[in-house]
């Protein structure tokens, strides 16, 4: 098997970015909008993985944060024009952070199946709040007639009504989210969070504030999902209670598992794969959902580590890149394939994952 040299890998990343940036110049508008949508779902899946993959906590209320930020944009968009991007985005994200802190503070007191149930209940509460009351147009949802305006000192900077501009904004945000998540996972915080996932008792007895770690991860994850929800509402000009429902939460969870939980990029790949698959099947088959289900089952069986597992066949091995970083022992450059072997950990949630994996 040919393995990519790190410089080749960097070249490949640069090429992918250039191709992604050039898409609006080459492809018809429909595909530009489709790609924006896929990238936003990739962003939600990426954010959920901080909690599910790195935190070991299966949350089923992630769509609530996505939808809430969308509604916040709806509330702040006047009838006559676009909301200010600089004001509406921070306010929407702050609202999501506050709600996530409350939900997290309560639900993180439970474990395992109970955590899933409690987050599901909170998600449904938010869904029915928007579905059964007059807030945000009730079950009909509400229209957002104008996209947010990015202006500097009164002068419009970027016109988001143009779908190519909107696409570039989404692309930049996704790249930013990927870089942020990569940094978090490698940081002291990220390591502590993963330690708590692999063995909570041990993490506590070493002195890690496990509850606080998880709460912070939950809120950060919710805010990134909120960013995607805000942009998604802006893209479609419409928000409805379904944006907050458990169906979307579950779909995002499928994207995460499909792409692979042990890396930052896996869930993004999973989101692209699922959305792309839907798009192809929808146009070709009548009973496409049935076929989609079969394909997902096949992928899970064939690639238990997610689609990203395929990439591992060509990625450079750990230690290929010059001398080890300061602080890593000189004699240890273990094979990543060994590191990814199943861990006979004490935590059943950790069993299908290696530990301390990044990127």
């Amino acid at each position, binding site marked *: 098997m040919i393995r990519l040299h790190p410089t080749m890998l960097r070249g490949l990343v640069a090429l992918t970015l250039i191709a992604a940036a050039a898409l609006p110049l080459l492809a018809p508008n429909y595909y530009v909008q489709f790609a924006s949508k896929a990238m936003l779902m990739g962003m939600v899946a990426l954010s959920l993985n901080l909690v599910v993959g790195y935190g070991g906590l299966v949350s089923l209320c992630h769509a609530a944060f996505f939808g809430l930020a969308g509604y916040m944009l709806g509330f702040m968009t006047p009838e006559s024009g676009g909301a200010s991007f600089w004001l509406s985005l921070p306010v929407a994200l702050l609202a999501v952070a506050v709600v996530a802190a409350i939900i997290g503070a309560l639900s993180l007191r439970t474990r395992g199946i109970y955590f899933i149930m409690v987050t599901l209940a909170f998600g449904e509460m938010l869904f029915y709040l928007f579905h059964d009351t007059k807030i945000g147009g009730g079950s009909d949802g509400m229209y957002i007639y104008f996209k947010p305006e990015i202006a500097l000192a009164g002068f419009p900077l970027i016109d988001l009504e143009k779908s190519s501009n909107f696409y570039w904004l989404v692309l930049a945000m996704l790249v930013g989210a990927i870089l942020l998540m990569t*940094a*978090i996972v*490698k*940081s*002291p*915080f*990220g*390591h*502590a969070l993963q*330690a708590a996932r*692999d*063995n909570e*008792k*041990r*993490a*506590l*007895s*070493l*002195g*890690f*504030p*496990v509850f*606080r*770690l998880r709460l*912070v991860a939950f809120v*950060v994850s919710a805010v990134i999902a909120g960013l995607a929800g805000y942009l998604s509402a802006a893209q479609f000009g419409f928000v409805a209670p379904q944006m907050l429902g458990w169906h979307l939460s579950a779909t995002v969870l499928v994207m995460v598992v499909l792409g692979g939980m042990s890396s930052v990029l896996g869930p993004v790949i999973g989101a692209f794969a699922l959305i792309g698959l839907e798009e192809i099947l929808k146009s070709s088959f009548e009973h496409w959902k049935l076929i989609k289900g079969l394909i997902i089952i096949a992928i899970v069986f064939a690639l238990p580590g997610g689609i990203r597992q395929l990439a591992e066949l060509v990625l450079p091995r750990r230690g290929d890149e010059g001398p080890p*970083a*300061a*602080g*890593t*022992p*000189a*004699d*240890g*450059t*273990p094979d990543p394939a*060994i*590191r990814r*072997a199943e*861990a*006979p*950990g*004490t935590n059943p949630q950790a069993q299908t994952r*290696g*530990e*301390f994996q990044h990127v």
Partner: protein
Amino acid sequence: MSEIMMEARSLHRRFGGLRAVSDVSLAIYRNEVHAVIGPNGAGKSTLINLLSGDIPVSEGEVRLGDREITGLKPNLRAMAGVGRSYQKTTIFMGSTVFENVRLAAQAKSGHALRMLGAVQHDDAVNEAARAAIVATGLQARSGTIARFMSHGEQRQLEIAMVLATDPKVILLDEPLAGMGQAEALRMIALIRSLKQDRGVLLVEHDMDAVFALADRLTVMADGKVIASGLPDDVRNHPAVRAAYLGDHEVAA
């Protein structure tokens, strides 16, 4: 008499109707190994869990130096200076020795919530980790994935992790369990080195190890202390002979 590092004052722990630990008082002194022995089910592990905070006490008081820590959660007790090992090895199997120990040192550094900067670039943390690895004699294994080491080395690693948190008191729950002769001898030497400037509580079934290490000995049965004092005095105590030679065989 030397300084008391940690103290239990009439601790009680009930699980429903079961009195797992009942009116247990003991002190762990600086530069001493205090061994706790007793038949299975005597409440030794529960006692360690009460001292480390893994299980809350029903009644009584836990003190660390002159500070009362009865209400502290395990992570705050660890930060205050209580380190512990578990009966079942709890290391991170997929990580290297160095990564395991660095994680422990990082916990102590108090930067658990820092999101920026890669972990491997904190020099103070790296230095603490390296020192703990040297102290436990694992230098040669620094880059080895924990899973691929022998059981004895894994237990050494667990001790290295405890050391990296810079504890004042170390609680060891059956550190020799499942070890071969050579491994056990190495571990005994390691435990002896741990008491330097610290207090060590040792729960162990291996009587050779206990009598080789203990500066002070407490015998428990049915959740109660039946004898406590210097090893030679306790060994000949009639209640101890009864507890060990009654229903149970001498654990050795």
